[in-house]
């Protein structure tokens, strides 16, 4: 198809997109979403801010509580086992075929 001019191409495209209209039930859909989310204008955001602030404070409070509950395990005196290795078998013993 031969194109007439640059303006025709743009006009045709813009007119085609401008000719579309939204779903006739869009307003109903918007009102349904509003009713399902909040009771009045602006209230949703206020409650969400309060909820976020409360959960943040709760997390900080729980963290402090968990920190104060911690008590380290009592230390025991270290026990040292002294093993004398002067009687240990010599490794060369296993390398001799006659002893296998």
């Amino acid at each position: 198809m031969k194109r007439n001019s640059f303006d025709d191409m743009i006009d045709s495209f813009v007119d085609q997109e401008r000719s579309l209209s939204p779903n006739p039930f869009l307003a109903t859909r918007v009102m349904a979403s509003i009713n399902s989310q909040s009771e009045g204008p602006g209230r949703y955001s206020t409650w969400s801010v309060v909820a976020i602030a409360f959960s943040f404070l709760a997390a900080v409070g729980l963290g402090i509580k968990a920190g104060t509950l911690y008590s380290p395990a009592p230390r025991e005196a270290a026990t040292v086992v002294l093993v004398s290795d002067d009687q240990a078998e010599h490794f060369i013993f296993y390398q001799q075929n006659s002893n296998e």
Partner: protein
Amino acid sequence: MQEFELIDSILNGNQKDFERLVQKYESPVFRVAMGLVHNKEDAEEITQDVFLKAYRGLPGFHHKAQLSTWLYRITVNTALNFLRRKKKNPFWTSLSGLFQLPSKDSSAELRISEKTDHEVVKLAIDSLPQKQRLAFVLTRYEELPQKQVASIMRTSEGAVEQLVLRARKNLRKKLEPAVGYTGGRLSKKLNSQA
């Protein structure tokens, strides 16, 4: 009913008046969204989102600008955020293209040619710098006066005039090779620029 009376009534909890406001402005908001995203379903989603944001933000509207200007500003921001999100997740965009059925109509060839034309213009508009694109969409799709476009874009009228002129010049430069030419090579080239 005056605009401020309508807003006061909505703030006092009259949801019927908000529905009236949605019905009054849904088409202009939808057209601007359409000019930015070029897809009916996406434009409807953005329109719905715009009115939800407007409802929540209405207590913060202090009549410093016209209500329509305020709504256009929300529309532009919502559409640009939508495009940013879409750019980050190109998988779903390419997947939805797979399910478009081919036409069985006898005039399909003509429509394919027109579709190619429109695809080329769409890519050219989308490849414009963001401010030029906004100025072009607001003046061509909504035919808004430069003063209002300047208020929406928070710039001067002179700047809007320059942006529209530059957008036109850029579109001409991008579309000149396409006049009298039908094919996929140009759209591929524009696609890579977008």
